[in-house]
């Protein structure tokens, strides 16, 4: 009880600072995922459209995902230096797998008869892609984004090791100062952000799915 009081007091006293860290955290994640979408969606589309490229693209993004996060950030630091930018690139790599894979699966899953209706009505391959296949893969893509967001929010907490901000800063300084109040003050908001992201993106996913069940 006493601890909770202490934690509460600390968080209220430092709320401006915590809010800034949380905002920075969210920004890193948003940039990372944004970039991952920019790169991952086209990669997923290419994998779905060019059969022989699919295994290559999918294994590459899969390998990226398998590199331990600390190692990945350390390696990236060698090339991109300290700071925000490097963490964003790391998060981009981590988000790539769910986004590429779900785009790929989403496009592949489109019902054969719907494709046939599109082609049979005279759509070009490009029209088929942007009028039919891509819109129909959106629920899958949304699921990928949701997964990517949850992963990125947690990976971002080690950002401060390579000189970035975010809620990890509070946690890591808590570790070195052996202050459990500081650790909780960083961990609780990070968890809440993850839960909120999961919930909100889940809702969006549901909504995008609703109409597709023909």
């Amino acid at each position, binding site marked *: 009880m006493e601890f909770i009081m202490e934690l509460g007091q600390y968080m209220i006293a430092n709320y401006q600072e915590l809010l800034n860290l949380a905002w920075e955290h969210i920004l890193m994640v948003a940039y990372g995922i944004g970039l991952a979408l920019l790169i991952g969606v086209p990669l997923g589309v290419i994998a779905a459209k060019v059969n022989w490229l699919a295994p290559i693209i999918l294994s590459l993004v899969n390998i990226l995902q398998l590199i331990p996060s600390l190692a990945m950030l350390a390696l990236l630091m060698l090339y991109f230096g300290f700071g925000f930018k490097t963490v964003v690139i790391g998060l981009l790599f981590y988000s790539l797998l769910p986004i590429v894979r779900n785009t790929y699966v989403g496009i592949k899953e489109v019902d054969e*008869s719907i494709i046939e209706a599109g082609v049979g009505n*005279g759509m070009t391959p490009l029209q088929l892609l942007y009028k039919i296949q891509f819109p129909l893969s959106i629920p899958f893509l949304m699921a990928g984004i949701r997964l990517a967001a949850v992963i990125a929010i947690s990976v971002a907490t080690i950002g401060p090791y390579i000189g970035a901000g975010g809620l990890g800063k509070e946690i890591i300084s808590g570790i070195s100062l052996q202050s459990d109040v500081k650790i909780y003050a960083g961990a609780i908001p990070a968890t809440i952000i993850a839960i909120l992201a999961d919930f909100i993106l889940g809702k969006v996913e549901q909504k995008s799915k609703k109409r597709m069940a*023909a």
Partner: protein
Amino acid sequence: MIELKNVNKIYNDGFQALTKVNVEFQEGKINVLIGPSGCGKTTTMKLLNRLVDYTDGEVYFNGKKIKEMNPIELRRQMGFVIQNIGLFPHMTIFNNVATVPKLLKWDKDRIKKRVIELLEMVNLDPNTYMNRYPSELSGGQQQRIGVIRALAAEPSTILMDEPFSALDPISREQLQDELLRLQTEINKTIIFVTHDMDEALKIADNIVLMKDGKVVQQGSPDSLLSNPANDFVKEFIGEKRLNSNNQLNDLSLANYINKDILLVQSDIRIEKATSSLIERKVSSAVVINEDETYNGIVSLYDAIENNSSEINSIIKKASLIIYENDKVSTVLEKIEGIHDIVPVLSKEDIVVGLLSVDKLFATLHHLTEYKRGEI
């Protein structure tokens, strides 16, 4: 017109799906492709809009080789209703129906007008349905949308692959009727795939019967029923249908001619005709010329109305006259909506008698009862 000449189709795995197929699909008619599962109906249909390419032979569309046509443009000229409807689930009904007009870049007002017109054509209220999604429609409604999507850009040709097969019998009948009604308005060249013989007999102008990638027989429903090419055709049509058709053809019109009728000469006075009609207790009589050829009919009602003058003034033409060697089936086609007496003439236009409509319908009733009971 669409013509297939000596078309062979061998799929990549070496399977020969079509062997020397020669077919003519008639312009402005409903052409039905029928045959057992796997006989190559869908393959044949997909050759036409080049969803499948043929191995050799030639396919002509309005005299042009389709291999030399741009497939995208070809497809936009041919409406296509695929086997499992294939509506786009992420698009509203409006956008589904507007698919091809949009691809053809029609202007917005024209598209909207067209979609509304099409929805009304299949009895779906545009205001109610336009903004719904396919999942919010019943199966039959979805099939209707599938059909009008194919009609949207006014293609000259419509390909329909088992469009009604997923429906319950009642909705299927309803959609068949709707298609027939529609066809009288739009007169498209329709290629319709089915494996249901009743459906084929009902809607087809021209039936192409296939088996194992070959065309076994093609012709009008009547010609298939009356001259099945071989045992397979007989079996596929089914004994019952052949029998009931034969029974109909076997009926001789002679049995339905009432020869005991009142004939009056064309130069008598009306009062004389009136008294004969009353005496014989009939309401109409056939008027003949001096050489006994047909002249017209008179009714008791008209005769009583003006009983002074010559009979000439009240002679009418019968709405329908038939000849004694007409087939029962032809007579049946014409007789609908006729309420007068129907004179039956010989080749030389001599009056033989009157068609006994009651007796004919009694026999038909008996025949169809029998058929229903049997099937």
